[in-house]
């Protein structure tokens, strides 16, 4: 890569020179009267600059990829190709400058190409995510039986080999924490949304809505620290120890409650939008028949908004399952299958972090298992998201 810096600098210099040459050449072709030109000199200049830069830069990107795949360093042949492309592009576009040539169209084709390239990056990200994890997951299943991974009930990695790497205890912890989080977030978020959209006056709304949304803007590490230094010790000292549930400050309960607080704005702001979308005529109809406001909400507004609310809850669930920092700091590291919510348990994300930080050896199943865990996590959250969108679309009531 290093030795390509010079040719690239040369290309950029060539583009700048080409820009000005093209401009003056266009003026010359026009005989000083730019009104005769089909395209303005600036557009000829832009076309030349783009034609000089884009092909070599694209070639460099391709070459970098190829070099990584074959482990080859940059070589002379390639430097020549890069410079050759730049010079050819510059020369061809300069030769092409005529009175009737449509430089604006050409230049815009280059730009359109760049725009298309930019919008494929999202696709490439997904492909990158899937392939990077699939590749290492296959490596993992080459060394470790997939049946043990999916069905074994114990998780005890051992860096000398002979590890038990069953996902079930981790999934159990993940689902348990997420369940508690949803038990906290759904009622609070839903009632807050209902109150804000149906009862609250503009003054309360203008204070409460942004305040709840601030919760969504706080980084998860802050929630993690909150769980670690405040919620965990309080739960241990005032609930777990007096009631004889255990002595651990990090527990499913700690992580669940804090995560629930984090999820409140997700549930409430999505539900708020959906409740507001229910037409006023439906409320008026119900109120006109003599229903109280709460009866109207329970029997008319909520059923109408239900698909959207379910979608919001599913999105919150997917958020909870993929959340990392709160569980790393709040839930503990011991893989356990237990029903006691005051015991420390661990989750898929915690184990991804612990298997991939520190000294990692990318040949051992203890490290590679993180990729299998990551892929499982990705599939679960993706499934939840797709399902949520499907429900919202399929059961959306069409008003008007």
């Amino acid at each position, binding site marked *: 890569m290093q030795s390509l810096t010079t040719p690239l600098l040369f290309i950029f210099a060539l583009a700048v020179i080409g820009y000005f040459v093209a401009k003056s050449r266009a003026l010359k072709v026009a005989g000083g009267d730019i009104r005769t030109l089909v395209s303005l000199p600036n557009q000829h200049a832009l076309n030349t600059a783009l034609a000089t830069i884009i092909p070599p830069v694209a070639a460099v990107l391709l070459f970098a990829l190829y070099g990584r795949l074959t482990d080859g360093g940059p070589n002379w042949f390639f430097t020549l190709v890069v410079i050759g492309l730049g010079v050819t592009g510059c020369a061809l576009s300069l030769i092409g400058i005529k009175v009737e040539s449509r430089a*604006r169209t050409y230049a815009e084709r280059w730009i359109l190409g760049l*725009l298309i390239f930019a919008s494929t*990056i999202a696709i490439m990200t997904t492909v990158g995510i899937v392939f990077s994890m699939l590749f290492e997951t296959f490596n993992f299943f080459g060394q470790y039986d997939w049946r043990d991974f999916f069905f074994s009930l114990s998780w005890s990695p051992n860096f000398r080999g002979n590890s038990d790497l069953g996902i079930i205890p981790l999934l159990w912890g993940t689902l348990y924490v997420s369940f508690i989080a949803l038990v906290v977030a759904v009622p609070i978020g839903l009632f*807050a949304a209902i109150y804000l959209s149906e009862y609250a006056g503009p003054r309360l709304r203008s204070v409460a809505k942004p305040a709840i949304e601030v919760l969504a803007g706080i980084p998860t*590490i*802050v929630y993690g620290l*909150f769980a670690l230094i405040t919620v965990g010790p309080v739960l241990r000292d005032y609930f777990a120890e007096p009631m004889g549930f255990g002595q651990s400050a990090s527990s499913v309960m700690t992580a669940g409650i804090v995560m629930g607080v984090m999820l409140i704005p997700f549930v409430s702001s999505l539900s708020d939008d959906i409740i507001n979308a229910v037409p006023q005529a439906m409320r008026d109809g119900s109120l006109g028949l003599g229903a109280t406001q709460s009866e109207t909400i329970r029997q008319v507004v909520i059923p109408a908004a239900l698909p959207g609310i379910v979608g919001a809850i599913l999105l919150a669930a997917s*958020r909870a399952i993929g959340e990392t920092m709160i569980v790393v*700091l709040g839930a503990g590291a011991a893989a356990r299958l237990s029903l006691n919510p005051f015991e420390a348990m661990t989750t898929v994300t915690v184990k991804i972090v612990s298997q991939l930080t520190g000294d990692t050896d990318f040949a051992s199943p203890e490290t590679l298992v993180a990729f299998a865990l990551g892929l499982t996590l*990705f599939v679960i959250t993706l499934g939840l998201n797709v399902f949520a969108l499907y429900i919202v679309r399929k059961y959306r009531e069409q008003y008007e």
Partner: protein
Amino acid sequence: MKTSLLAADARTKKRNAAEKRFRAYGLSAIIVAMSALLILLTSVLVNGLSSFQQTFITMDIELAEERVDKEGNRDPAEMAKTTTIGYNSILRDALIATIEGEGLTTDLSNRDIADMISKEASATVRDRVLANPDLVGQTVTFDVLASGRIDGYFKGDVTLESAALDSNTSPEALTLAQQLADAGVIETKFNWNFFIWPDASVQRPEAAGLGVAILGSLYMMIVVLVLALPIGVASSIYLEEFAPKNRITDIIEVNISNLAAVPSIVYGILGLAIFINFMEFNQSSPLVGGLVLTLMTLPTIIISTRAALKSVPPSIRDAALGVGASKMQSVFHHVLPLAAPGILTGTIIGLAQALGETAPLLLIGMVAFVREYPAAYTPEAGLFGEASTALPVQVFNWTQRSDPAFVERASGAIITLLVFLLIMNAVAIYLRRRFERRW
């Protein structure tokens, strides 16, 4: 049965009670949510505000020639032979002299007195002397760091009772420190160094700072801004203005909305597999961190940019096309400038999100202990290639250490992070209020 319109019957009473209950549930949900926010912020502030204060001991240190410059040549290379251990005893003697000078007596052994000074202090003094050899032979007044326990005592984290159980300090040392504070030798003042100094080792919480972390976060934000803004805007322009409605663009759109919901840790795995293992970029470097965060913030930026582009009315485009502009010109000369405030707001919010993100950075090795300030460019490591850490990761790092003084540091770092986020969001809100146009 007699009924009256003025007296409510049992059924109506029941229904009205249900109505009241329902309202109460709603109101209490809001109160719970808002008090959760309040408790969260209070907890962080209570734990963290003290990290902006630091306890210093002001004392006259005699830099005798025979102790710091044995050769007497004032040559820094030769003077460097006196290690920090040598300076430890100089500081100890200076503190004993100060104590005697104030007329105080103590039962503490000389070693325990030396333990009142931070282990970092000797390195600070040594660096000052090496940088300025003329100080040798003089008696210079230094503000040196007090040890973490003394610092904790003045902040209320360490008490005489807890000190009795602590092997690192003793009630006598704290009593002496209190006497010194009354005499004005020990002082607690605002700790600018917290924002400047790099991280410190496990035994020296009093010397730990955020310098490297802030620098690392800054580098990453630059990478994110430089990459995510142009790519995000370009892809939004294509999808919103040019893309034909077909299967491929449908796939891209569904894909972007799904990417926005992918757990952040998955991006960390992507970064580890692609940028570090495959592309062989440097581990722990702001470049890799920035790239990962770029991919993570792209969906946010694309979604908000598309909303901003969509809000520009079609008449603007039609007018531009009508006077002979090409489609591209109408977008770049007219639509884009009008959508710029919205795009900028979305970008700042995306950046704020990226600034607070921790999980993916853990996987690409940014948890490493870094004491060297990373350079933006070095020929060996390339652009943003030197190992660094980041603000949220530094918080995580400090929470993993056993000394409780690091909890205070971690909360202080959180406050710093939240202040940055607050500023960014305030700027975003200001931009939106100031430049937003309603059509």
